[in-house]
């Protein structure tokens, strides 16, 4: 299935996109999305493997299952204030 991951800030500017589509198996968990992101951008492999993903506007564990309809966002390098 295709999962769309929202990205923000410097990272979005650097990659010139606001959303990354990755292909994962239908039984995928959150960590599989991390691995798929890392595989798609080898130069950012470390960042994507460890980045926190929010699913439907909440942080989740790497073990949580994921669906194609979920809203997934990469929450990393934030800097409010």
């Amino acid at each position, binding site marked *: 299935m295709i999962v769309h991951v*929202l990205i*923000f*800030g*410097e990272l979005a*500017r650097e990659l010139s996109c606001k959303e990354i589509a990755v292909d994962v198996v239908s039984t995928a968990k959150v960590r599989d999305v991390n691995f798929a992101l890392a595989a798609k951008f080898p130069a950012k492999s470390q960042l994507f493997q460890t980045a926190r993903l*929010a699913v439907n*506007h*909440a*942080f989740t564990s790497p073990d949580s299952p994921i669906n194609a309809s979920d809203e997934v*966002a990469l*929450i990393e*390098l*934030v*800097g*409010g*204030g």
Partner: protein
Amino acid sequence: MSVAIHIIDGPLQDAINYGAQNSFTQTATNIGATLVFEGVVRALEGARHIRALEYEVYEPMASRTLAGLAQDILATHGLISITVEHSRGQVSVGERSFRLSVQSAHRKEALAATDEFITRMKCDVPIWKSPVYS
């Protein structure tokens, strides 16, 4: 005990007066300390001069995360109230992008809560800032 979160387009305006005057509820008369912290956009980001910062706010997660954080800090530190205001979009140098207003019985918990709130906000709240050069 109350928590309020406001995401504001552009720079923050002057603070509403959070003082306890003219609000003689049981709670208000227990307020002994109010602390207002404001974040102001500085002219230098690293070594480069900037004109503004652009804040990108991922909603509704940002508001929810701020509210959860505020509730947690309110309970942990035994505060009376927390109000959070954060800008979205462009905020020029010298303007304010963030305001945390805390009411408590004594100063110690207000100071400790402010420190902890800002530290945790910078880790967990999905708000990104980007420099805007002149």
